[in-house]
């Protein structure tokens, strides 16, 4: 019998999984690895492991896999974390894995981007189970109704790999993958202080997230975790404002699911104008403050 185990690393991923589970069209359960209070999304059963900080991949592999027996499909939202963990579970189970599913065509047939998002391949998987990560932007959004009752389970942790340090960006801005508005900057932002003031300030005024190009990250203008693109975060906000972003293939691959893309660039020939819904040729240091003032309080 076909049955999906949706593995959520934290509660925010539970609701994101609903659209995917519906697209697959089979009964499903949820395994919530950390955090409490999962949303009610129609799962038949919710298991909560309460791991707190999810430990390194090899430390929980055996414990997670022990919960996966009997499922034909195992899936998580695409993230660096799920990409770290899920291939281990797949190999442990001798299962095929499909990364970054964007369309479910059948229970064993999926579409996914390849070659830096320049092409889409359709794959057919034989055997069971099938392990997958999926991009939530490809599936319907869902407002959870109520709270699911979760059964507590214990996932044993081995301590072979020690986490000896961690730094998180923190702050009040929404996560790039969840933000409704993203303001993104490239190398013309000059330095970290200017980036934070111009891009960060704009993001705060529209309750959005700040993003950056790979060039900006490589020049230490913006921190790594803000990198948007095929090699960084894949985003799909309602509004993506790209300021001083030329529009490289790999950057565009990360933003193409945005509903509206606005480009502000001083170079009228910047490739981003070919892919932007709205483009304005101009100096971002002049345009952005004016736009910020006129959009303030609207989001």
């Amino acid at each position, binding site marked *: 019998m076909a049955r999906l185990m949706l593995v959520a690393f934290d509660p925010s991923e539970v609701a994101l999984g609903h659209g995917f589970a519906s697209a697959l069209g089979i009964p499903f359960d949820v395994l919530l690895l950390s955090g409490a209070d999962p949303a009610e999304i129609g799962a038949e059963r919710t298991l909560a492991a309460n791991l707190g900080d999810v430990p*390194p*991949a090899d430390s929980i592999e055996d414990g997670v896999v022990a919960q996966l027996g009997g499922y034909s499909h195992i899936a998580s939202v695409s*993230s*660096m*974390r799920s*990409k*770290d*963990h*899920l*291939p*281990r*579970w797949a*190999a442990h189970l*001798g299962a*095929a*894995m*499909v*990364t970054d599913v964007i369309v479910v065509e059948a229970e064993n*047939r999926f579409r996914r*981007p*390849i*070659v*830096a998002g*320049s*092409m*889409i*391949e359709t*794959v*057919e*998987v*034989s055997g069971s189970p099938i392990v997958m990560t999926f991009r939530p932007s490809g599936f319907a959004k869902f407002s959870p109704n109520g709270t699911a009752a979760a059964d507590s389970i214990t996932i044993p942790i081995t301590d*072979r*790999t*020690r*986490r*000896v*340090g*961690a*730094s998180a*960006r923190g702050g009040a801005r929404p*996560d790039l993958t969840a933000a409704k508005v993203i303001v993104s900057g490239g190398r013309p932002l000059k330095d970290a202080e200017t980036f934070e003031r111009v891009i960060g300030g704009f993001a705060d005024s529209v309750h959005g997230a700040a993003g950056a190009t*790979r060039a900006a990250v490589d020049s230490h203008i913006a921190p*790594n*975790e803000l990198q948007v693109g095929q*090699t960084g975060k894949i985003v799909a906000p*309602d509004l993506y404002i790209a300021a001083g972003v030329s529009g490289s293939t790999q950057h565009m691959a990360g933003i*193409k699911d945005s509903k*509206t893309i*606005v480009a502000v660039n001083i170079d009228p020939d910047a490739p981003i*104008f*070919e*892919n932007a*819904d*709205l*483009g*304005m040729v101009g100096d971002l240091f002049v345009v952005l403050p004016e*736009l910020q003032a*006129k*959009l303030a309080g*609207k989001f």
Partner: protein
Amino acid sequence: MKIMVTVKRVIDPYAKVRPLSDGSGVDTTGVKFDANPFDEIAVEEAVRQKEKNPVIEIVAVSLGGTECEEQLRKALAMGADKAVLIESSENYDTLAVAEEFVALVKAESPDLVLMGKQSTDGDNNQVGQMMAALLGWPQATFASKLELADGTARVTRETDTGEETLEMNLPAIVTTDLRLNEPRYIALPGIIKARSKPLEKRPPSSTATSRVKTVKVEAVPARSAGKKVGSVDELVAELSARGLF
């Protein structure tokens, strides 16, 4: 101490590529091939570790047809000591690739496997983690810094929200991200020296399997160029007309 690095032959990541007209795959006519850029970062890291600790031996490995020799020679030119090509023209899915490399790990007994986090053609990001699971080894993916000491590895890795540092006993698998290093330019003496370094070919350890089959490849529909606006007021009006606020 021995480091194994994987080197995949991929379509030149900077080339414009299209699907074949019948959608059966990627059109590689006239397209150059190169080593997967993330694997080059892995080779570079191995060479830098060897520069700090000359007793390190580096073996570069690949899976594919004879043409993969070209990419293995590149790894040798960068500073790998020897290369092994598992020669096969069959299709392998990620797990089958992991199984072949695991067989090679058992034969070569490296203390560390360094590899790209993903290849720039398939974009799967699976093989390293699968190998680690099959071997029962610890892993650190998305590495941005690697320190080796006394049978342990200390790896700083990128995460969704920032970075973290893991400490693990060797043997282990580390997959590389962009910011680990910048691969060196290969100078002519390296290329010449690489020609005389050993490159061994061996058959696959088992029959190729592919549980994942590509049945169609198509181009992404291009987003069409939108409207150019002349003022911020016009921009705000357009955003409002689109129901954004």
